[in-house]
């Protein structure tokens, strides 16, 4: 660790740790970031730039870093980690990005030589031809070389979400944030203070601008403040937490790194995404220093002045003992003082302002300490082999001299960090005094304090805070703030310095992350891209992961000069969240893998598992898809077995997932008549009816069975997926359209467990299980239901089935559901009862030509299309969808209609989703579209008929009975010859169902 250590730094311990960078081992101290650790070891070269592969070093000391992006090999290897933020720990293994084979010898640097080709808008002008080259050559090559880092390893994050509801959120735990917090201690407001660093203090830690507060040194004052806050009962602090997003309505998102400075424990969540809803937001998130463009301003060794100062004060390391300093404003003198305090001396102080505009105190201090002083001068450029070696200075007589230096610290001024403010939709305004944009009109309940509001002078701070927080009606704060430098801020505009070098390879950068030069900006404007949004996209300026934090305002300055407009006329591009890279793992939180969607299980679930059910997802429900009789049984075998056995003896399905709605009230009958197509008026009590629900456009929305207890009391079933939708649909009409109808609804889906049992031997089983009920056909006809007492609970049996066999639906309280299910099996064993799943259910209903909502119907199918005219109550004056059934579109006779399809060759199988066509063979080269007559909506191999049966929606299908057509196949061009038949394949007279 050869760099000088600042022993006065409070945040670096003496504990040494070992880190690895690009395969070599180095020492550092606990508390170091990767950047400060590398600087401690005098490592200047940290990566290669995006486009030109130019050598790059550490430019800043914060989130705004454009160059020092690395990958952490011993973690998930996420690319583009900022070395200036990521804290080091014992054993951390880091590698640099975007270079091959090594940092010092990178083949990619050939791009730099080819750079005149890669100018602005290069992406839009190249790789156009010849034909075929894009797919075979350009794209694979670009994919290999694009991007900065390598993809991360496969891992499952454990990040979680944490919601907060507070009265006041303070963004930033620096001087302004801490003063605001002190005002709020023990008031009745619930406050959350969020700070991105591991320690509170902000500018108090990062610089030596402030000497004392209320007579205490800054470190003591911060500690005292923190103690007071922790003791209070209304303020909470979050550290290592960065606010990335500011949404409506005062809803902010912040990302917390829970393992900052530590090795990640894979059993704990490593990130927390904080979602904060607040009444007032106080933005005290400070400012960011900006750079200056000059020739080779990207060489390793160029580092922003206040970042250099932050390395000294906050991280206790002096990156270079005699840097050259280049500034256009009054703040940089504090860096000089930091160096002098450690017996170091800058090798030059270059100030672009006129001598008479420079502060007397600054001039005196420079002279007293013998620092070479260059007023009214600017840096023309710097040169060196992969690092700064010489700095060229142009003086006020236009003469250029050079000095030897290994570090150059520019300061182009400071930008209030307005990202969050503009995300909140606040308006900003250009301020001549600070030469930057500052917040002007807030759109939400937002208050800005301190440097983020454009207030750069400590003497104004308390007055600003007291004034802006006066609505809180708390006592004023007036601590005495003593500074180390003169408090008045002055700056002279300087965006880019002049260079004499006219070569194509002389580069002055305006965006370090994406390698955009000032020449690119000028070229783009020449080509007509003079609006700032176009310019940004054409040149990719400020589009990198750093969002141009240190440079985008500079680009506005340069553009305004070229266009001869005021900066306020040029405007800014839209600031979009997140403020800093936000991982998808954090956004997803815990809602991944098995927690992705809530899972719903029926009371019989464990029995299904014990009996080797394979499950499928139906909405949120887990339903048995099929049951494996033995380990090697395939799905096809299982389904064929279950289907055959159900039609031969008996089968039972757990139908608990279907929705059930209880409808009751004086006007229930009128309501049901309006919601469904059927006529319910003449329906007898204690009977059931299959019903259709349409949308107002006449299309089928859902179906179900309606049980009428009496004219004022109904129970409706719905499809499993449709239950919430149907309930909401009914509520909507009752509240918005027909509030005069006195009807109440309750969802009782979970209050009854449902079993569907069907097959020729069902009656015998039911008689054994329910000994008190008469199941004779005359006493218990088809589509009727009975209620009865089962162990002192109310149960119901309805005679209906979806399989076309004699069948019953049993509704039982969940309390006794499993017990009853097992009892049914106990008796059913003697009658060959088989459990079946959803796949068999689909097959059996297809053999009967019954439609499934969502399979035959897709939102474009009317009841008439599927031959359900008989379900429409013709005498009803009105119901939802009635008028739409007579629209010109719904009465067309070439609409797709439901038909059955069987292959002429009984050994062939028809796939669902295939097209019904007229031609026997598809042409090899399709020149004109093949006419499409319809599609196969359901298709199964029927074990009961021993051939494939399909249901299809075919244009004008009703008139095509007996016609020979063809169905396409997934492979090849030879289509399957088929015949259009009645979709009811088994027992068309329904004898099995009704006997």
């Amino acid at each position, binding site marked *: 660790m050869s760099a000088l250590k600042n022993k006065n730094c409070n945040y670096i311990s003496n504990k040494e740790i070992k880190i690895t960078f690009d395969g070599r081992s180095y020492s550092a101290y606990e508390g170091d970031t990767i950047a400060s650790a590398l600087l401690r070891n005098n490592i200047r070269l940290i990566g290669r730039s995006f486009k030109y592969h130019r050598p790059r070093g550490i430019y800043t000391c914060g989130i705004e870093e454009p160059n020092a992006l690395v990958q952490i090999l011993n973690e998930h290897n996420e690319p583009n980690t900022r070395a200036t933020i990521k804290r080091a720990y014992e054993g951390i293994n880091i590698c640099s990005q975007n270079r091959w084979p090594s940092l010092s010898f990178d083949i990619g640097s050939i791009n730099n030589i080819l750079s005149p080709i890669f100018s602005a808008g290069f992406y839009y002008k190249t790789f156009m031809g010849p034909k075929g080259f894009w797919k075979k050559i350009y794209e694979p090559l670009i994919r290999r070389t694009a991007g900065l880092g390598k993809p991360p390893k496969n891992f499952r994050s454990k990040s979680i979400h944490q919601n907060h509801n507070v009265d006041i959120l303070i963004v930033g735990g620096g001087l302004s944030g801490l003063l605001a917090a002190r005002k709020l201690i023990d008031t009745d407001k619930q406050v959350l203070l969020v700070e991105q660093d591991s320690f509170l203090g902000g500018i108090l830690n990062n610089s030596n601008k402030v000497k004392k507060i209320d007579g205490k040194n800054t470190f003591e004052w911060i500690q005292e403040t923190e103690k007071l806050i922790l003791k209070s009962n209304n303020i909470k602090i979050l550290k290592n937490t960065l606010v990335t997003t500011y*949404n409506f309505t005062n809803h902010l998102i912040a990302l917390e790194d829970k393992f900052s400075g530590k090795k990640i424990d894979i059993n704990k969540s490593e990130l927390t995404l904080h979602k904060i809803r607040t009444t007032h937001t106080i933005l005290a998130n400070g400012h960011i220093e900006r750079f200056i463009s000059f020739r080779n301003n990207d060489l390793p060794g160029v580092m922003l002045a206040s970042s250099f100062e932050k390395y000294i004060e906050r991280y206790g390391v002096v990156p270079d003992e005699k840097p050259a300093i280049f500034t256009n404003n009054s703040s940089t003198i504090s860096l000089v003082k930091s160096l002098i305090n450690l017996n170091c001396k800058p090798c030059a102080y270059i100030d672009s302002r006129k001598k008479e505009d420079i502060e007397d105190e600054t001039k005196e201090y420079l002279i007293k300490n013998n620092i070479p002083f260059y007023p009214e001068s600017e840096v023309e450029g710097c040169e060196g082999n992969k690092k700064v070696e010489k700095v060229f200075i142009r003086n006020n007589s236009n003469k250029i001299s050079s000095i030897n230096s290994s570090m150059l610290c520019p300061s182009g001024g400071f930008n209030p960090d307005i990202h969050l403010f503009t995300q909140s939709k606040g308006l900003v305004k250009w301020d001549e005094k600070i030469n930057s944009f500052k917040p002007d009109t807030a759109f939400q309940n937002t208050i800005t304090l301190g440097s983020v509001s454009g207030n750069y002078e400590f003497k104004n701070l308390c007055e600003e805070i007291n004034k802006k927080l006066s609505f809180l009606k708390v006592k004023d704060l007036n601590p005495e703030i003593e500074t180390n430098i003169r408090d008045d801020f002055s700056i002279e505009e300087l965006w880019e310095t002049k260079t004499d070098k006219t070569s194509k390879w002389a580069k002055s950068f305006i965006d370090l992350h994406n390698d955009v030069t000032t020449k690119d900006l000028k070229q783009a404007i020449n080509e007509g891209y003079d609006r700032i949004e176009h310019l940004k996209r054409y040149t990719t300026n400020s589009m990198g992961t750093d969002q141009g934090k240190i440079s985008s305002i500079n680009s506005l300055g340069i553009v305004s000069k070229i266009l001869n407009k005021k900066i306020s006329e040029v405007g800014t591009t839209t600031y979009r969240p997140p403020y800093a890279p936000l991982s998808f793992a954090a956004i997803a939180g815990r809602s991944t893998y098995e927690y992705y969607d809530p899972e719903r299980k029926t009371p019989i679930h464990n029995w299904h598992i014990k009996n080797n059910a394979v499950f499928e997802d139906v909405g949120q429900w887990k339903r048995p898809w099929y049951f494996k009789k033995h380990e090697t049984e395939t799905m096809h075998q299982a389904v064929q077995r279950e289907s055959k056995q159900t039609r031969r003896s008996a089968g039972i399905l757990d139908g608990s997932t279907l929705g059930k709605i209880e409808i009751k009230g004086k006007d229930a009958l009128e309501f049901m008549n309006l919601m469904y197509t059927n006529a319910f008026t003449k329906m007898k009590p204690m009977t059931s009816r299959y019903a259709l629900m349409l949308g107002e456009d006449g299309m089928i929305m859902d179906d179900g069975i309606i049980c009428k207890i009496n004219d004022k009391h109904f129970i409706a079933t719905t499809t499993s997926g449709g239950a919430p939708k149907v309930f909401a649909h009914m509520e909507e009409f009752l509240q918005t359209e027909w509030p005069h109808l006195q009807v109440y609804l309750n969802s009782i889906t979970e209050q009854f467990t449902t079993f569907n049992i069907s097959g020729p031997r069902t009656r015998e089983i039911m008689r054994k299980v329910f000994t008190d009920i008469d199941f004779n056909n005359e006493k218990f006809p088809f589509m009727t239901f009975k209620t009865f007492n089962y162990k002192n609970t109310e149960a119901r049996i309805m005679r209906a089935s979806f399989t076309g066999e004699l069948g019953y639906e049993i509704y039982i309280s969940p309390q006794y559901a499993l017990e009853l299910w097992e009892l049914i099996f106990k008796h059913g064993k003697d009658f060959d009862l088989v459990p079946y799943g959803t796949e068999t259910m689909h097959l059996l209903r297809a053999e009967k030509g019954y439609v499934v909502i969502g399979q035959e119907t897709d939102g474009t199918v009317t009841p008439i299309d599927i031959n359900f005219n008989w379900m429409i109550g013709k005498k009803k004056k009105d119901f939802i969808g009635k008028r739409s059934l007579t629209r010109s579109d719904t009465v067309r006779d070439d609409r797709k209609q439901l038909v059955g399809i069987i292959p002429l060759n009984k050994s062939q199988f028809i796939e669902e989703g295939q097209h019904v066509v007229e031609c026997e063979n598809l042409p090899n080269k399709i020149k004109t579209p093949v006419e499409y007559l319809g599609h196969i909506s359901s298709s199964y191999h029927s074990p009961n008929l021993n051939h494939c049966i399909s249901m299809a929606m075919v244009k004008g299908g009703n008139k095509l009975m007996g016609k020979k057509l063809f169905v396409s196949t997934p492979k090849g061009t030879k289509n399957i010859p088929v015949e259009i038949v009645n979709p009811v394949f088994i027992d068309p007279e329904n004898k099995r169902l009704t006997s």
Partner: protein
Amino acid sequence: MILINCPYCGEREQSEFTNGGEAHVIRPKDPDILNDKDWGQYVFYRSNPKGIFYERWVHTHGCRKWFNVVRDTSTDTILKIYKLTDNKPDISEFQSTLKSPSGEPIVGSGNFAVKK
């Protein structure tokens, strides 16, 4: 994500609600006498202005109540919440409350062209 002040439950997160489309679209009392064009107008057409919009919301994951909302669609600001049975508020009520987020032209009601 906006906060919605349910008339029954108070202020709740937007995720508890479902948007119900345009408000004050009344189902025709006698659909049979309408021709296809007029019936189609009711079934398929809704307005979609940038600016003041009268719409419905329902507190799906809460009390299930439907209510009306006046929202400025360009800023997502809720200007008024009122019951289904209340009269439709006049647009003049909202002119002075309009604010423009950064970059957008000042909005009123009706369709506006893209920002200049």
